[in-house]
């Protein structure tokens, strides 16, 4: 528990870590609620472990999908993941980054049976 106490006491002293941003494009595979997604990190970091999960904003913590590991793509900072959702609708996709950077990036998309559109900023 010592780390907890130290972290709690440090509070405001912590340094701002490097912020990574991500874009994601997904396309419908033709199979029910299965989408192939390409994630692009900014800056284009390589060797990052990305676990991709998703949950529905109106039922956080309960209505979610089993997280999958993204695999590195050909371009720098590019990763691929296949999302197997429960249903169409708006999902908050969570990219959990670990390795050289640790972060959680949340992106919103409207998944339909024809395609995927980003929602919000």
């Amino acid at each position, binding site marked *: 528990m010592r780390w907890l106490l130290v*972290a709690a006491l440090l509070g405001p002293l912590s340094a701002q870590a490097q912020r990574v941003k991500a874009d994601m494009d997904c396309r419908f595979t033709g199979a029910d609620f299965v989408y192939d997604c390409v994630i692009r990190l900014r800056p284009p970091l390589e060797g990052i472990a990305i676990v991709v999960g998703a949950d529905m904003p109106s039922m956080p913590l309960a209505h979610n999908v089993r997280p999958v590991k993204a695999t590195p793509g050909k371009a720098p900072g590019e990763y691929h993941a296949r999302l197997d959702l*429960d249903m169409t609708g708006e999902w908050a996709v969570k990219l959990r980054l670990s390795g050289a950077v640790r*972060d959680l990036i949340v992106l919103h998309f409207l998944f339909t049976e024809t395609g995927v559109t980003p929602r919000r900023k």
Partner: protein
Amino acid sequence: MDEYTIGVLTNVGLLAFLALSAYVLLVAGELSFGQQAFFGVGAYAAGVGTAMLALPLPLAAALAMGLGAGAAALVGLPTLRLRGLYFAMATLAAAEMFRIGFELFRWQVEVGGERVGPDGTQGFRGIRWVFEHGVEPAQFLLMVWALLGAVLGVLVFVERSRLGVAVRAGGQDPELAAAVGLDVLRIKLGAIVAAGALAALGGALFAHHNTYIEPRNFDIMLGVHSLAYALIGGLGTVLGPLLGVALDIGLLEGGRFLKEYRMIVFGGLVAVLLMFRPRGVLDERAVHRLTRWR
């Protein structure tokens, strides 16, 4: 422990705070469809605390609990004399007012070159205390369950005390409780405030687990589920809501093969369970039987 298991156990722990909050009110004899509002107040307050005011998480969580308790008192005072369905409707309406309030809440400051803070329907991003302090998912899980254990300990202690007996008596028969000299309204208000603080603590942890919150996270679905957790698990012991969450999440996770039908099947199972055990798996009778064997 793999990342998936850590994630599921963390979710169970976080939802347990909300379930316990609904349980406290059920034991006090009231059905609330509005505990998600205080979960939201806690999430926003703690998010503002760490991400905008640079407070350490324990302090932000304490602030969240205080605000959650205050918000619950604000709802509880005018609804104190309502009973049953009327109280449930009032809590639902109040929760919707809070959710709409979150949608209108805009307050952002610049932190590290980025705008951080609640941005209405766009939500509140950048609640990154956990990441900035290198707290690993397993450590966060430990933090959640340590706090949950402490809360359960306090609730067990209260349940075994005269206060606990008074809350249960006021919940089961308010007229009889008042006739033996109990101040039922005061007990009920205390339960409402305590339940608000509990939900807010869960919300504070949820915001830091998720790093992002938005008004829709705190809509009626979450309130209905929190009630369902408490009712499924049982009203006989504080362990009931925890069992309810574990059953709910366990069934949902185990029913992934049902794909889009799993929520329908899950709803049916809950309905069947409540037909046979209207006060949950660990109801008063079951707890009495179990404790008799000790």
